[in-house]
């Protein structure tokens, strides 16, 4: 089964869960006074759930394998997934999660410089004498912009220093 049908199937499953919540569990906490309303908070989700299941089924059963037109080098094609640098992409995603977790404890400047340096290293950059200054200047100027110009607080240093 092609990926797009798996997605359609997952979508139908999602609609079922969503619809179950809308039809059976959501109205329990509705105060009696609101039950006199012609529209409940669950009305719109109910319509969406039903429509979603119908559309999902249509896609699931009508999707035909996309015509294999010749694709330019830059386009994304699942059949060539094996040739792609998939591990680099996964590594970068992991790095983004790590960045999210360390942003508060390590402070903005430290974690951003680490993120930029490690990200570029992961992609194959080895000229650290250029990379590290670029990362430090980049992180510093963004911090200045956000904190001083836009006035949004970003803790610059690790938590134990301040």
């Amino acid at each position, binding site marked *: 089964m092609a990926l797009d049908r798996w997605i359609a199937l997952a979508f139908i499953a999602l609609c079922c869960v969503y619809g179950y919540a809308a039809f059976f569990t959501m109205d329990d906490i509705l105060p009696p006074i609101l039950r006199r309303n*012609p529209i409940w908070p669950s009305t719109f989700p109910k319509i969406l759930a039903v429509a979603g299941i119908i559309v999902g089924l249509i896609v699931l059963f009508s999707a035909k394998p996309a*015509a294999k037109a010749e694709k330019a080098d830059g386009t994304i094609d699942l059949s060539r997934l094996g040739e792609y640098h998939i591990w680099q992409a996964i590594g970068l995603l992991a790095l983004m999660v790590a960045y999210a977790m360390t942003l508060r404890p390590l402070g903005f400047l430290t974690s951003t410089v680490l993120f930029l340096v490690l990200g570029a290293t992961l992609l194959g950059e080895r000229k650290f004498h250029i990379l590290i200054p670029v990362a430090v200047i980049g992180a510093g100027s963004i911090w200045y912009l956000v904190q001083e110009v836009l006035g949004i607080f970003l803790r610059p240093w690790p938590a134990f220093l301040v």
Partner: protein
Amino acid sequence: MLEGLMIGLAAAVTPFNLMMVVFGCVIGTLIGMLPGLGPMSIIAIMIPVAIGLGDPTAALILLSGVYYGAIFGGSTSSILLNAPGVAGTVATSFDGYPMARKGQAGKALTIAAIASFAGGTIGAILLMIFAPALSTVALLFHSAEYFALMVVGLSAIAAFAGTGQVGKALMMTILGLMMGTVGEGALSNMPRFTFGMMELQSGFSFITLAMAMFALPEALFLVMNPARQAQGESGKITGLRISREEARSIAPVIGRQSLQGFFIGVLPGAGATIASFLGYAVERNIAKGAEQEEFGKGSIKGLAAPETANNAACTGSFVPLLTLGIPGSGTTAILLGALIALNVTPGPRLMTDQPDVFWAVIISMYIGNLVLLILNLPLIPYIAKILAVPRNYLIPFILFFTLMGSYIGQNNHVELLILVGFGVVATILRFADYPLAPLLIGFILGTMLEDNFARAMQLYQGFGFILERPMTLALLVLAGLLVVLPSYRARRARKRAEGVADGD
């Protein structure tokens, strides 16, 4: 109208706003040139900055400058590298790249700049004429009609998604609508689908979603497939001048395509991509003999047509946004989200309640086009150097900007995890050829759609409004036809080539 123009001039022509136009155009051009980063990604990245400005006029001026700049930058990389940065400039590369190969890169860029300028400026004049008229009509609409109109908009977006894509686009729209219901509904302030998580109480943040849907997958694709970012040979670009005969031959093309592009842009779902392809096709059919032969081999008409049409369509897409509050494309949907965040509600009341915002945007369109022309013609050879930024530096910075954008909106690290999670989902969806713009449009329209639906239901004590208001019924029938017709026709003509499906 003159009075409006004066208001707009007064609001837009302040040193700060002029700086914003220039800044937006430059940023848009620079980033738009990078293959893979379209206007949607760029505007998504710029939104936190725009919202941080606090002033809706300045923010909208900045964002429309970015939008124009991105489209223009996209055509530069189409011409020089045959690597369109934006779907709307794919047609530009048909004739632009052959011209560059023939050593006429400078001339091609000049024609692109002039055509963009003319398309954008004529589009802005048409916008000025049509938007007030449309918003007068729109004031007569009730919530029932608004609901129906939004349904029409959403189904039109699905219908224009291309052959064989209608079902998928519809599915994405519904997914977006479903995601829009997460959090406290405006209706009863009852939390819905939050799974008891405090972070979901106010729903998903649209900036996070926009980043996750567009900027993140593009960056990941650049990582996975280095061929996506062709490395440019930064050769010298000379000979920017065009001759009088050439100017005379492209003038009628520009005139026709400005009009056609604008009206295509007004249609929800169509936008710059379709306008540019259609413009190219129409001009090829109109051209005679030897000129028709030239198309695809470096014809100046073939270059001028899509360039004019896509800029005019960009302007046209502001019409439904500013008069009805209904975005017709992914880009205007993001703009709508930004406006709502700035406490401006686009719609028919915008012109009466906040005329300065409305007219300032129109004035800033003129200024933006002028700035692009002045700025880019002499600077093109230098600007093109950005194509040589190594990807090892580019990609971590793009990822960092997406993270930053969603973090400073919410100041919450859970938001970043949501961003990464949705980014992965969006990448998988892209792999399976699911269009993502309908998802975002559905998400942004979802709340408004439900509000209007609820209001109509309450006024008519049930679903009666559908039958009692003829216009609502007519619009809903139109929406149904829009969805059903393409699949019906596709079934009949299945053997035809697959359509172009990409949001802009």
